[in-house]
């Protein structure tokens, strides 16, 4: 999996592409940990190019979500492919993650919170 990190105002955006599994999930957690170390706790992941996700990949996202909650940050996802969306539904992860159809909508939601 490839992970590209970019900054959008107060939000760190991670563009993921490829397969999110055990190995890439660990790499992703490491990448996010680095951001937390820099006090960047507003994180968004654009999943448009994620073609496959398995149990380990889901576990890594859950783990990141728990960390974000502890740090009182915020973690959003967008552009889930239909297969990834399907897994999110069956695991009911769609109820704990903030999932947006597009990255723009996700980033706008950060702005709303910041403004308030």
């Amino acid at each position, binding site marked *: 999996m490839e992970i590209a990190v970019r900054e959008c105002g107060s939000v760190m955006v991670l563009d993921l592409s490829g397969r999110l599994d055990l190995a890439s999930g660990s790499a992703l957690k490491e990448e996010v940990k680095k951001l937390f170390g820099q006090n960047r706790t507003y994180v968004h992941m654009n999943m448009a190019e994620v073609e496959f*996700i398995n149990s380990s990949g*889901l576990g890594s996202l859950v783990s990141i*979500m728990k960390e974000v909650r502890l740090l009182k940050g915020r973690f959003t996802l967008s552009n889930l492919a239909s*297969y990834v969306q399907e897994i999110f539904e*069956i695991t*009911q992860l769609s*109820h704990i993650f903030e999932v947006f159809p597009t990255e723009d909508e996700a980033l706008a939601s950060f702005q709303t919170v910041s403004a*308030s």
Partner: protein
Amino acid sequence: MHDVVERIGGLLAKLQSPDFYQREEAVKELGSYTQDEAVAGLVLALEDQDLGIRELAADHLAKIGGHTTSQLLIRFLANEDIGTRNLASEILVRIGSAAVPALLRNIDTDDEDVRKFIVDVLGLIGDERAAEAISNKLWDENANVVCSAAEALGEIGSADSIKPLLAVCEKDNDARLQAIEALGKIGDSSVLTHLIDYLEVDDPMVRFAVFEAIGYIGQVESITSLVPYLDSPDNSIAEAALGAIITISNKNRGRADYDLPLDKFTDFLFDGIKSRDEEITDFTLDRLTHWYGSDVVEGLLDVIEHVDDERLKQIQESLGEVGHTAAVLVLKKLASASKTVKQKLLDILRLMIDDQIADQLIPYVGDEDPEVRQRVAHLLGISGWSGAVPKLIQMTEDPNGHVRTAAYAALGWLSTEDHVDNILKGLDDKYPDVREAAVGALVIIGGTRVVAKFTADLHHDDVVRQRLAVTALGWLGETSVIKPLTEAINHPDAGVRKSAIVSLSRMGTQIDTEPIGLALTDENSAVRKAAISALVTLKGSEAVNDIRPCLDDQDLWVRYHCITCIGEMGVADHAAYLLPYLEDDSDIIRIAAAKTMAVLGDEQAVPALSDLMREKNKDLVEAASMAISKIKGDK
């Protein structure tokens, strides 16, 4: 004509009958005539002893309208019975603009009560033609007429009335209140400076009217003049000033962003929300984002049962911003809340949940309301607090299926492989939602025991469980599921075989394609189609030699699918394989082949495609035509 007049005469006589039904019948029929005699009869019926007949006559008169009706009704404005006078006024208002000329002709009548009635009616009709005549009544010798005239001018709302109304404010103490209200309703900002001057008069009623009028006019700039009154020692004045600011703010969609001492008005504002005052509710909730404090939070929690879902969401988000302080107050209120409020409070906690709050929710695991228990299970899950796992395991035994579903989902987010056995029980639940939640939880947890369980379930007695198992193995997607999924390609159930192939193709890496290739000859056509798709996904264009035999499959739709897949590979050389199918017996196959030729663009296909142009089937001709255009265009 003579007959009609005679008939109406008979009906008028019937109006004098002691029999209710006779009179009612007469009124009904009179309502169908437009002759003045009939109208006169209906007007007479306004004095009938029976209310039903009076109202029936009123309805007919309002519908007939016109000059005669209005003129006759105006006479009733002097009737000694107040009920009749009111009824006549009401009909005139219903007649509307058509009654205005008659009313204006009588506006200077000697009877001051009738003058007042006429002015009132004209105001309610709201026709600008009456404005000038009513303005003249601002100087009537009778104070009631003057007050009515001021009110009527406010209803009509003509800017031409501003000057006379301001003059009344100056000269007539009795009608000042009505004049100020009228100026507010007219809504012209040019009067603001005059109105602001009246904020200093002694009469509190006038001052209230001024605040209301300023609010009604809605100019943001006038807030500066209102703000000092927020500090008035007289609460009613301070609240009237705030009321005006609220109206202005709402009229300007919240753009009136002044720093206001709202803490002083919490009771006023929250009472307004409780009494469902829309203006106060909008204003208060819009300002929440920069107005915290425990009294505000408590106020908000007190009103959650009085607001709609959208506003509840607004409150929820605002309290989420407040965070832990709000959570403490929510938890405090939760202890004594009613069923509905409890559910709403739990929804509020969603945005602020953490370990500590989750811990405080444990007593509600046994709440009598299943909707509360369901919400608690969900909150415990999203809290991320692993300490909640034992309670959630307990909740998987809840008598309510929705609670069990929420508990299993939450366990998926919180637990580890140590809790797999507890979650596996959910696979045997009687409700499919609960079983799916358990599967979802197991997919998140994963691990060898979960894989082993689903692998074993591939041979469960119940075929539904077998299918659930193969799907779950696909969702798990770990390397360890490749073997059981590959074996499942030979499963006795076609649904399982197909699902195994689909899952393997999605996994993509390290997959042995040979067993999938064997499935191209499966007895079930859906499995064969899945195998074609899987091979194309896994091997790309190299799969063409594997799937080519399926071009002659016994099943039409397998053949169709195979042609489409070869087309999607986009390799021009593959067109040769499809040429014979342009002459297939089936139109469906020929259409698929023609469409694929449009993609692959092989010139050798043109003669066969040209033959297809002579076919009767329009879809076939269209597909062939497109393919030829594409091929020739490419060339």
